[in-house]
């Protein structure tokens, strides 16, 4: 009986391909082009999306836990009460933040959980007065959510009681440098004298307008009893919405908001971009398949004589099919590996030529997916000539010369 190690089909398939050199080269190039386009497209779009998402949430909280609006709370006894005023003020702060933070830190999916206090005020320097948003953060977690420690361009990223970290945008406008002093005023007209301890560049205009000081300083300066928000960063950016919903069901007195909810439009744009790239890739795959099917189909006709004689000598239908499936596999694998190589060359050429890394996302997935798809397509396409080869009867060939 024939051993399972019998690989003569491979030998014959290889020889058929090598002897039909022109055809083989053409189809391999065709597959390579298709795969190169696929790889290029996938890594470019993947890269763009990743850098876009990174720019959006890489240095920002993924989930904000905010006070639930319009939950009434009695005004605390310390505040003078005026009967004509409302007895209840809208709740704008989180008082038991410590509990929330402790609870959230137990969750392994969560990278950072840090409270923050927000206020808005004015910076006065010389004759100019500029409105600013003041963020009170804790070190190091609060700073790390914004990657301020990494993105500091001058000075030192520390929160001390008399210094502030400023965004590059404000510093440029007010020509502030590290060590310079300025007044920060709140809306009640009180003011503190602060020193520029460091300057950061978050890469976005909104981020570069921030004034960051320690959370406790913001709380006392703006009269916040609790905190304004608890900011979270999670390990897997895309799981933020799910995690947010989960805790949302658990925490009834606060409101959770994930970055996805805040960036619906961006996400819609990204997903329609992905699906148009998927559509292009789908048609590339279809055209690769059609190319292989037609080339191997022609080959199956051209090799009828050979197949007939092989069958007369004892080649089974299964082996005859295998000869074509193997050809499909060989075409698909060499073509796609060549295609990825060509795609890499294109991508690096693009980076070298334009001088910018457009953000090609080159990883195991973008490298391997088009190869696997092309091989699959090639093998599936080769089943058509394979069926034909199986059906051929040796007597037809022998009778007709």
């Amino acid at each position, binding site marked *: 009986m*024939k051993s399972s190690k019998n*690989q003569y089909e491979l030998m014959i398939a290889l020889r058929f391909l090598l002897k039909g050199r022109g055809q083989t080269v053409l189809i391999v190039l065709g597959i390579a082009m298709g795969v190169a386009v696929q790889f290029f497209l996938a890594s470019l779009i993947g890269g763009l999306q990743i850098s876009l998402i990174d720019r959006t949430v890489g240095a920002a909280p993924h989930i904000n836990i905010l006070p639930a609006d319009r939950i009434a709370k009695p005004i605390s006894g310390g505040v003078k009460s005026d009967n004509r005023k409302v007895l209840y003020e809208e709740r704008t702060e989180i008082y038991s933040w410590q509990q929330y933070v402790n609870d959230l830190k137990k969750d392994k999916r969560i990278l950072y959980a840090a409270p923050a206090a927000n206020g808005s005020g004015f910076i006065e320097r010389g004759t100019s007065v500029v409105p600013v948003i003041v963020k009170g953060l804790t070190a190091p977690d609060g700073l790390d959510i914004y990657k301020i420690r990494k993105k500091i361009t001058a000075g030192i990223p520390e929160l001390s009681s008399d210094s502030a970290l400023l965004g590059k945008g404000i510093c440029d406008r007010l020509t502030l440098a590290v060590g310079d002093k300025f007044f920060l005023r709140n809306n009640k007209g009180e003011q503190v004298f602060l020193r520029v301890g460091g300057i950061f560049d978050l890469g976005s205009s909104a981020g570069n307008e921030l004034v960051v000081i320690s959370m406790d300083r913001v709380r006392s300066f703006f009269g916040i009893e609790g905190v304004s928000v608890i900011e979270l960063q999670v390990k897997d950016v895309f799981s933020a919405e799910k995690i947010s919903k989960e805790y949302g069901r658990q925490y009834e007195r606060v409101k959770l908001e994930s970055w996805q909810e805040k960036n619906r439009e961006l996400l819609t744009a990204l997903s329609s971009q992905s699906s148009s790239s998927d559509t292009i890739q789908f048609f590339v795959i279809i055209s690769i398949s059609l190319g292989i099917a037609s080339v191997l189909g022609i080959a199956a006709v051209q090799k009828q004589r*050979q197949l007939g004689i*092989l069958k*007369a*000598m*004892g080649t*089974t239908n299964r*082996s005859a099919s295998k000869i074509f499936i193997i050809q499909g596999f060989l075409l698909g694998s060499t073509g796609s590996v060549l295609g990825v190589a060509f795609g890499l060359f294109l991508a690096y050429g693009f980076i070298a030529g334009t001088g910018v890394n457009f953000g090609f996302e080159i990883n195991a997935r973008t490298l391997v997916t088009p190869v696997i798809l092309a091989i699959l397509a090639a093998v599936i396409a080769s089943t058509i000539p394979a069926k034909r080869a199986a059906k051929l009867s040796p007597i037809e060939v022998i*009778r007709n010369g």
Partner: protein
Amino acid sequence: MAESVLKTKGLNKTYFGKVNTPVLFDINIEIERGSFTALIGPSGSGKSTLLNCLGLLDPQTSGEIVFDGKSIISQNVNELADFRNANIGFIFQFHYLLPEFTAYENILIPCWIRNGKPSPEIEKEALRIMDRIGVLKLKDKLTSEISGGQQQRVSIARALINKPKLIFADEPTGNLDRDSGGTVLDLMAELNKENNITMVMVTHDREVALRADYIYELVDGKICKYLEVKKTGKAGAAKAIEERACDFK
């Protein structure tokens, strides 16, 4: 007849199509082991059809083929393919070598089909056969680069490599000039005697037929004459073939 290697019982063959063409009628023949049997007859009489049925390439419509005492009842094409690979060698009018492979590789193809990579002994045997047949020099030539006579000799070597019980040859010299045809026939006759290989050969050539041990003549799909050359002698056989009449029982 001593021991028979192949026997048919009431073999019929009809080609079915728009019109049904009955080609073979009640064929009962017997092939002796180690013998050289010639199959002659006018064009269109059904010689190739019979040979293809005997070689299990074309299924008969009815009747039985008994190979080595066992009736071939399988109609499974893959089982038949395995059986052909192990037991039957073919030599056709056209050489049917694979042009993508060298002469040496072509000879080994039946072994590949059987066992995959051939053992060193088989490779040595292939070279020995090539040497015997006089094509050793052409070993590494593609079969498209050698002459018709050489191609036919390579296909003889290919038919021999798996040590088949039977070799079927359908006008193996039909496409060759007289000289190279003669060499090929001499070679086949010698191989038949040397290795005790059973051969069944279709031929148009009376001279060739007279070199056989047995002659069957086919006319209109029926066996019309059966001659044992040993008994009749060459002259007797020649005379019997000459007589046109065919007495069907």
